[in-house]
């Protein structure tokens, strides 16, 4: 079957499946109208149209889906490569993602209804019908997918996307639900003054939140502990760990921590507004910090545990984490300093000419609280991770300085500082020139470039400091030989510690070939100095490819060209 023909069949299968599903939901919803909601057909207005549409969709969509899907299945049975094809993997996982999301949403609605004493007037026929139909669609395609296995790399990758998307979404539902529940409980405590009327705590909002917690928890447990098990080698899992869960929870936790510090500082500096409910913010900020900390610790530990099996993997994971956290800390530190710098600048502008006629209480305290809270959170964070990074660079030498995460970290900061400086200087020069040319150079000009002055003042030292580090790295060889040699190691034992040491010194993995001749008795051992020397020899090799032979205690470095 040609690719175009296969695409044609998969698209039509998808469309007809949609028609069949919509028809079934329609009919099932009508049935619930008459059974659960205890209405008679005569009592439900204008059901004829709904019934006709439902029947038409099922009668037309059903046979067509059977026809197209049956054709695909027959083709898959005949052609072995169809089962692992990327097209089939996309189709199956797309249906799985969509049906899983709808099933989860509708299940949550059903659960909330069940918790609310199953009142007939609150029963949602449409969502219950959708839950049943989509659950069947999901289960069928899941069985099909599981039965086929994931023969190719593409099929595996697409499946991983499906698993990690659902896992991440469920973790977000679970976390958001927990925060929401604690916040609602906190606000409902009988300690807040000025409450005239208090509604029931066990309302539809709370039931819905609990339903989301249960659904999110179940779905996360299923996808994370069952579907994503034994997947520690995948790159997508590392992305999930470091960019989504660890970085995401760190960002959420730090924002909440900053807001908490800001609010408390503002209050302690004399902020007197809305005293009655002022501390209600603790109801969401503290749970976010706690939940984010749990997610952060768990995923960091899990990532480290999985990386423990390979030293290089572990080093790389640790490095990525350190640079991400240092980046967050530095970003917050810069933001805090910029806010604080606004205070003296504003003071200078006001004292020069501008006449303040109205100032709300807390104007200065707001700036001060925000700036200082950012510093309180960011300084320990940045210093801790930056010192760790410096220690890694000291012990790791040029390999550490050449690490991709370090290069990205430095160049992102340098790039951002350069862009910020350029934008600020453009504005400063523009304001000055405009003031001179229009004969209106004065306090107003200074006022118009206030933000640019604040950011320039911070961007300059940040740029200089990181440029010096980048230059120092460059002098130590971090930029030279950035294109690594393709190293293949031939050895008797592919778990030899010598290979791990070479990989550590080179900073990347090497290809391993195992000698298949007579059993090798003498496993080569390398000292740290020998490994360093060997790594230098590989880097200096006159070809892009290097064959390293570790055999019976001997080591040979053989540069070679292909072709």
């Amino acid at each position: 079957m040609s690719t175009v023909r296969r695409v044609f069949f998969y698209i039509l299968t998808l469309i007809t499946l949609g028609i069949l599903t919509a028809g079934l939901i329609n009919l099932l919803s009508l049935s619930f109208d008459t059974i659960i909601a205890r209405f008679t057909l005569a009592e439900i207005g204008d059901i004829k149209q709904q019934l006709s549409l439902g029947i038409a969709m099922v009668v037309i969509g059903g046979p067509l889906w059977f026809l197209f899907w049956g054709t695909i299945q027959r083709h898959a049975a005949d052609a072995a490569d169809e089962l692992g094809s990327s097209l089939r993997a996309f189709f199956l996982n797309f249906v799985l993602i969509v049906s899983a999301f709808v099933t989860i949403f509708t299940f949550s609605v059903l659960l909330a209804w069940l918790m609310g004493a199953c009142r007939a007037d609150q029963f949602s026929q449409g969502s219950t019908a959708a839950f049943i139909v989509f659950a069947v669609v999901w289960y069928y395609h899941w069985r099909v997918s599981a039965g086929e296995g994931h023969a190719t790399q593409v099929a595996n990758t697409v499946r991983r996307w499906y698993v990690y998307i659902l896992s991440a979404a469920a973790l977000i539902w679970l976390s958001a639900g927990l925060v929401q529940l604690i916040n609602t409980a906190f606000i409902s405590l009988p300690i807040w003054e000025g409450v005239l009327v208090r509604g029931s705590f066990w309302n539809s909002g709370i039931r819905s939140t609990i339903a989301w917690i249960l659904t999110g928890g179940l779905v996360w447990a299923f996808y994370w502990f069952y579907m994503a098990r034994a997947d520690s080698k995948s790159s997508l899992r590392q992305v999930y760990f470091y960019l989504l869960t660890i970085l995401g929870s760190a960002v959420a936790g730090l924002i909440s921590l900053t807001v908490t510090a800001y609010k408390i500082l503002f209050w302690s500096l004399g902020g007197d507004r809305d005293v009655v409910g002022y501390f209600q913010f603790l109801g969401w900020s503290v749970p976010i910090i706690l939940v984010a900390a749990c997610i952060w610790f768990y995923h960091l530990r899990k990532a480290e545990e999985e990386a423990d099996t390979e030293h290089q993997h572990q080093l790389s994971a640790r490095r990525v984490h350190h640079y991400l956290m240092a980046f967050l800390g530095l970003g917050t530190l810069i933001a805090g300093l910029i806010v604080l710098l606004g205070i003296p600048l504003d003071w200078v502008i006001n004292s020069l000419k501008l006449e303040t006629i109205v100032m709300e209480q807390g104007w200065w305290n707001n700036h001060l609280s925000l700036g200082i809270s950012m510093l309180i959170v960011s300084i320990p964070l940045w210093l801790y991770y930056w010192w760790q990074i410096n220690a890694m660079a000291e012990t790791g030498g040029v390999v550490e300085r050449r690490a991709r995460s370090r290069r990205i970290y430095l160049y992102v900061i340098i790039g951002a500082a350069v862009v910020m400086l350029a934008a600020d200087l453009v504005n400063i020069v523009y304001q000055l020139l405009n003031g001179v040319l229009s004969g209106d150079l004065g306090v107003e000009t200074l006022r118009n470039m206030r933000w640019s002055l604040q950011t320039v003042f911070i961007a300059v030292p940040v740029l200089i400091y990181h440029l010096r580090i980048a230059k120092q790295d460059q002098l130590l060889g971090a930029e030279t030989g950035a294109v690594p040699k393709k190293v293949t190691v031939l050895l008797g034992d592919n778990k030899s510690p010598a290979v791990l040491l070479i990989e550590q010194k080179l900073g990347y993995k090497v290809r391993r070939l195992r000698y298949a001749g007579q059993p090798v008795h003498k496993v080569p051992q390398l000292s740290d100095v020998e490994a360093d020397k060997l790594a230098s020899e590989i880097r200096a090799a006159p070809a892009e490819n290097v064959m390293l032979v570790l055999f019976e205690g001997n080591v040979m470095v053989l540069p070679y060209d292909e072709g």
Partner: protein
Amino acid sequence: METSNRFLLVFGIIIVAIVVIAVTLAVTGGNEQVKLLPETSPEGIVQRFLTAVKDQDYLKAYSYLAPQSEQIKGDSYQNWVSSTQSSRDMSSWKASILKSTVRDNNATVEVAIDVFRPEGPLANPVNTNRVTFLLQKEGDKWLINQPVDIWWLY
């Protein structure tokens, strides 16, 4: 000491200096009393109107608006108050006079209103709105013709 560590130390000293200056200015600036301008001047009326809005004394603020203003004609006090209250949020703000002009019975007072509302780590938390108040003299009293709503608090 390594050069990078020396630089870090300098950076630390700069941070401490910024914090000390900011705290000093915020604490002393916070206690600074705003000078009340004469009630007979257009600037004084704008100041009193803004002060009344700040203190949520809407009846007083309304008294500084010209009743025959096109923007307020046909609108009740209740409607004005509800629209004004909906414009208020928890942001703090301050107002400074930029320029004022008086010509016969008409005056314009240009005011810069700085609203403090943090919106992101590297976004300017102070949003400046320039508002030109148009006033007219009725008898010996200046009244604000426009704007009568407080959109500038956004």
